[in-house]
């Protein structure tokens, strides 16, 4: 077995009681004290997440914009410098290579933030699609640690340790500047449904920055939070996770992510023909989010039943501290997407109640 990769905050996480697990080949904290407590603290005050395992790619060159518009489903040509954009990167057949954030630094320079589990695959894919464009792709994952500071008190905590005009920074915009003395990219983005920022920082400054945030935040109720609460927070917010709601086989149409697929944009893009055809014909299956009204947690990959017919499979599930019940999502045969759905739980039927996310009020 190969050695797990460590983030620049590995020592910090362990010293603060992080319970480390293997996530996509990285040693990551799944929780510090309690997933539920970390979830609640992020909803009520603030949570600080080490997400340095995420990959980063730098795209540069005179045709960087045209290249990204061909590579990605969203409309990069409409972006302004300082803007962040959520997009998908699709295969020709319409399945998803990855979902990612694009940060536009200038017309000729973009930073992409990629899922840790996909970074290697993404870089290979990006290279194969690059050939005709005057642009370069480089893996800069090692240049950054990434911290997510999220929650209703996140911005106040941030303001107490930097001079930047955070109030003037709208959602999905970023600036570059010093936080607690460390040069950062400060992005008003996140994966929790709460107000907050994501901070890209050079690895050697990561621990000082994390400690400064922790020191400033703890009196306000901030806690260190792990991947467990990151997942329950994103699922309550109704955000997709690669490998669950989207994948090589689950398309953006099936995942109801067509808001990030601009079939009408000027540029052609990888996957456009297949997605246009699927939209015309209607998807064979679709992602349905559900509540259970029950604290029992059905497990991922459990078959979903309509009557006694197997019509789908559970792809995500978590306990929602906000609703005090299990919530999740399932990939369902479109013919049954609006019928009564259930799962078998050790011989007992548990009903799944279709519910459009978000499950909680978003406040980003």
């Amino acid at each position, binding site marked *: 077995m190969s050695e797990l990769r460590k983030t620049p905050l590995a020592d910090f996480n362990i010293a603060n009681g992080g319970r480390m697990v293997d996530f996509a080949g990285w040693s990551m904290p*799944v*929780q510090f004290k*309690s*997933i*539920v*407590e970390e979830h609640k603290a992020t909803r009520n005050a603030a949570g600080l997440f080490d997400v340095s395992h995420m990959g980063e790619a730098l795209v540069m060159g005179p045709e960087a914009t045209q290249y990204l518009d061909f590579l990605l489903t969203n409309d990069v040509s409409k972006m302004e410098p300082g803007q962040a954009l959520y997009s998908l990167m699709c295969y020709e057949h319409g399945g998803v290579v990855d979902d990612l954030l694009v940060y536009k630094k200038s017309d000729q320079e973009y930073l992409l933030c990629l899922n840790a589990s996909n970074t290697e695959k993404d870089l290979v894919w990006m290279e194969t699609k690059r050939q005709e464009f005057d642009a370069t792709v480089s893996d800069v994952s090692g240049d950054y640690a990434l911290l997510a500071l999220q929650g209703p008190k996140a911005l106040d905590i941030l303001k107490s340790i930097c001079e930047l005009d955070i109030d003037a920074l709208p959602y999905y915009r970023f600036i570059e500047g010093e936080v607690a003395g460390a040069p950062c990219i400060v992005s008003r983005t996140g994966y929790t449904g709460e107000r907050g920022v994501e901070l890209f920082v050079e690895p050697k400054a990561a621990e000082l920055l994390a400690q400064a945030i922790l020191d400033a935040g703890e009196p306000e109720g901030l806690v260190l939070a792990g991947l*467990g609460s990151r997942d*329950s927070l994103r699922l309550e917010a109704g955000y997709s996770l690669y490998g669950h709601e989207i994948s090589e086989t689950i398309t953006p149409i099936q995942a109801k992510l067509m808001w990030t697929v601009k079939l009408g944009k000027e540029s052609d893009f990888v996957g456009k023909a297949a997605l246009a055809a699927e939209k015309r014909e209607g998807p064979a299956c679709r992602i349905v989010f559900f509540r259970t009204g*029950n*604290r*029992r*947690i059905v*497990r991922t990959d459990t078959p979903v039943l309509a009557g006694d017919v197997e019509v789908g499979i559970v792809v995500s599930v*978590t*306990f929602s501290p906000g609703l005090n019940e*299990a919530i999740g999502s399932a990939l369902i045969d479109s013919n049954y997407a609006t019928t009564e759905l259930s799962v078998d739980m*050790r011989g007992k039927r548990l009903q799944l109640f279709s519910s459009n996310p978000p499950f909680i009020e978003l406040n980003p």
Partner: protein
Amino acid sequence: MNLPENLKYTSDHEWLKRLDNDEALVGITDYAQNSLGDITFVETPESRDTFDAGATFGVVESVKAASDLYMPVDAEVIEGNAALEENPEQVNTSAFEEGWIVKIKLLNPTQVDSLLDAEAYREIAKD
């Protein structure tokens, strides 16, 4: 590790507390609750159900996993801990006290002597 000396233990991370009249309480250890993480649901058996030693008598579900519960000794169920229906997190906060899972009648009381004492269990649970 928090391990009361007056309890008996199993290698499946259950504890048993002997009461008067050949009755006993059974729960999971502090080590087990800590490994499971936040507990969201505990399924307990019906009163009068009987189980052989080692049989599955219920399930504990946490945000991370579902884990079967194994009866330490031959037993007839007196009652499940009704408080866990509303507050399953009591197993996290008080594994050896308020977090007890089932109250049983010992069908074969001498079996209790062959369970692990705290010292022997400590060896198993220390990874």
